[in-house]
């Protein structure tokens, strides 16, 4: 009897700590009233922050709830959004995508990182994208009856996976910025869906990749050109799936790797950086006539990739922003790591960089005919 009473006593105490039902905890959630936010967009308009959210399609294809609120800060915006949906409790634990508008990426990134750190719901591993223009447009205007921004971004993520683009998470960006380096973030833009037939009511914009945005502690540094974005992709090691057309041949990048090493004098002073890239492609299409020889194609591929990589490196040096992880790589073989680490910021913009690319074209057996 005594044990039973003791057990009941312990159970009663434990029940008080549970998160639902009869709990005494004041922030318990009723599952039926939760509205799971899946995509969140942030924009900066003068002194105001605009937060746009989308709940994603419901389990029975109910249309997504899309809302936008303007406020002084993130928490304030969340409170306003909650007021717009009094019947539901907006729940941010399942946010999959964080879209930052251009100005917000420039000014609010630090606040976003701090906010996610303090938030008990949001994850650091949320996919982060920078929108060329306004995130509100992407979240709100890109919605239509049959689909919504979350589905579009999920589709873009699948596409990115197969075509070689890398979607970094907030954690990866925050870690790079905290180390004093720059970070790459996939940029997207809204574009009219011209290829698909819509009725007027259904017409909406598509969200398409637009290269990479470069971020550092100063904010949004720049958007990379398509070629420089490809170069950045080759240098950061994830180019598989990218399509490239060289000498009339369309090829798919199968794999590639970049080896970055520091060049030092006998006394240990940094003299430059060597970048050696190896890429392997497979031919998908070739011109019917005058197809290049395999050797010529190898050389042309190497030249093309070298041009991309050089453009990405030039952007990094011009902006004094090491978004390609060159510091980490150069430190590995530095005789005096501490000295190079401290002097890197000053040295980097003027360090001579030598790029060599070894391109190899596979599936080229029919080119030699």
């Amino acid at each position: 009897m005594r044990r039973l009473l003791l057990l009941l006593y312990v159970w009663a105490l434990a029940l008080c700590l549970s998160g639902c039902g009869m709990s005494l905890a004041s922030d318990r959630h009723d599952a039926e009233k939760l509205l799971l936010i899946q995509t969140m967009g942030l924009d900066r308009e003068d002194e105001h922050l605009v937060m746009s959210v989308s709940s994603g399609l419901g389990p029975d294809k109910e249309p997504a709830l899309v809302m936008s609120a303007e406020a002084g800060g993130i928490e304030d915006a969340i409170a306003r959004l909650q007021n717009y949906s009094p019947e539901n409790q907006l729940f941010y634990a399942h946010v999959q995508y964080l879209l930052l508008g251009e100005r917000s990426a420039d000014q609010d990134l630090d606040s976003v990182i701090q906010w996610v750190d303090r938030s008990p719901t949001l994850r650091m591993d949320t996919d982060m994208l920078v929108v060329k223009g306004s995130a509100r447009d992407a979240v709100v205007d890109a919605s239509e009856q049959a689909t919504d921004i979350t589905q579009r971004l999920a589709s873009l993520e699948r596409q990115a996976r197969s075509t070689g683009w890398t979607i970094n998470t907030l954690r990866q960006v925050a870690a790079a910025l905290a180390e004093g380096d720059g970070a790459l973030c996939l940029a997207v833009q809204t574009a009219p869906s011209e290829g698909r037939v819509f009725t007027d009511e259904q017409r909406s914009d598509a969200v398409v990749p637009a290269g990479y945005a470069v971020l550092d502690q100063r904010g949004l540094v720049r958007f990379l050109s398509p070629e420089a974005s490809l170069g950045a992709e080759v240098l950061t090691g994830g180019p598989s799936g990218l399509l490239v057309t060289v000498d009339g041949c369309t090829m798919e990048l199968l794999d590639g790797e970049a080896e970055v090493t520091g060049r030092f004098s006998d006394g240990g002073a940094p003299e430059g950086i060597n970048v050696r890239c190896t890429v392997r492609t497979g031919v998908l299409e070739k011109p019917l006539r005058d197809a290049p020889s395999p050797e010529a194609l190898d050389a042309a591929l190497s030249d093309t990739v070298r041009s991309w990589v050089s453009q990405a490196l030039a952007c990094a040096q011009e902006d004094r922003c090491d978004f390609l992880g060159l510091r980490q790589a150069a430190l590995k073989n530095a005789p005096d790591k501490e000295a190079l680490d401290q002097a890197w910021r000053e040295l980097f913009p003027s360090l001579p960089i030598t790029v060599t690319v070894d391109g190899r074209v596979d599936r080229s057996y029919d080119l030699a005919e």
Partner: protein
Amino acid sequence: MDEKRITRKQFAAAITVSLLSPLLRLLPQTAVGLAGKGAWLSPLPALIPVLLLALILESLRRHMRPGEGMGGLLRRWLGPVMGRVVPALYAAWFLFYGGFILRSGAERLVSTVYASSGQGLFAAVTIALCLTVTLGQMRAAARTAVILRAVLLGALAVVIVLSVSNMDADRLAPFSWQDAASAVPGALPLASVCGVAACFSFLSGYVEKPKNGRWLWGTHLLLLALGGVICASVMSVFGPALTARLTYPFFIMIRSISLGDMVPRIEAVVIAVWVGADFMLVAMLLRCAHEALRPVFGLPDPEGLPMGSLRGGRFLLWLEAGAVFACSFLFDLPPWQLKLWSDRYIPLGNDIMLYGGFTLLWLATIPKRKKEKSKS
């Protein structure tokens, strides 16, 4: 074996579980803040003070009589005045420290899971559970510790294994000798956490006699190894700089873990399980405080009486629990102030009371120990 006694393994489990609470409060961010990239190597320099303290405690333990804890030894060796003042000081510190753990544990749970809840509720429930355990038998608490150790270490292993996909060893590299040297200041929080094990010397009277003087080394080595693994895993996920900036990097790391679509998040379970470590530490501190005060007031052993009995000085346990609960309200501070207490004042207090206090005691009692040895 005496029914009141607990085995060395159970005692080691109680120490391990209890110390997991401050370990995750201070690591990895405090160690990374002090040591930078070298924080994951901090357990190596921390070995020296931790093992020295273990040797001092073992040296003192050898002079304890059967059933006697550190409180009894202090009372016997330091005379009628100091022999009462010093254990009472230790008891006061244990109750104060217990209040801090109660509050900081509630704050961690509230800030990481229950954002809009009050901390008082969690503190009240935890102290009620701790009092229940303290009023019961020591063996029951020790058996609970064995179960909790398996649960907590299992949860830690699961978290680290599931986080492997987010880890990047490059974030720990390149590693220079300067980084290795910087590991030394990072040893301070680790040594401070392991030093808390010295509180448990007040419970020595309940533990079976060890075969040799190195029996606690395994517990210390396990805790230091855990410290190194936690630092390395969190740093390889967030990088040293971001780790030092985040509030609870280990728990933020857990937030990113999912088991596919079936179990998208597991952090609430893991963080709730971690309350077990706070619960065990507060319960043990309550008991340590009681064992420190017992010789001061000449009270009998509280074991064996019914739970509701107030005889044999058991009312003191209720007062001690009340004191811990009251102390927890002293820490009703803004988060940044609580962090300051957590990172600086509490570890400093522990170091003074445990490293400083026991070293002084050991030095001051060298003649007495020599005398006892020559007698025997």
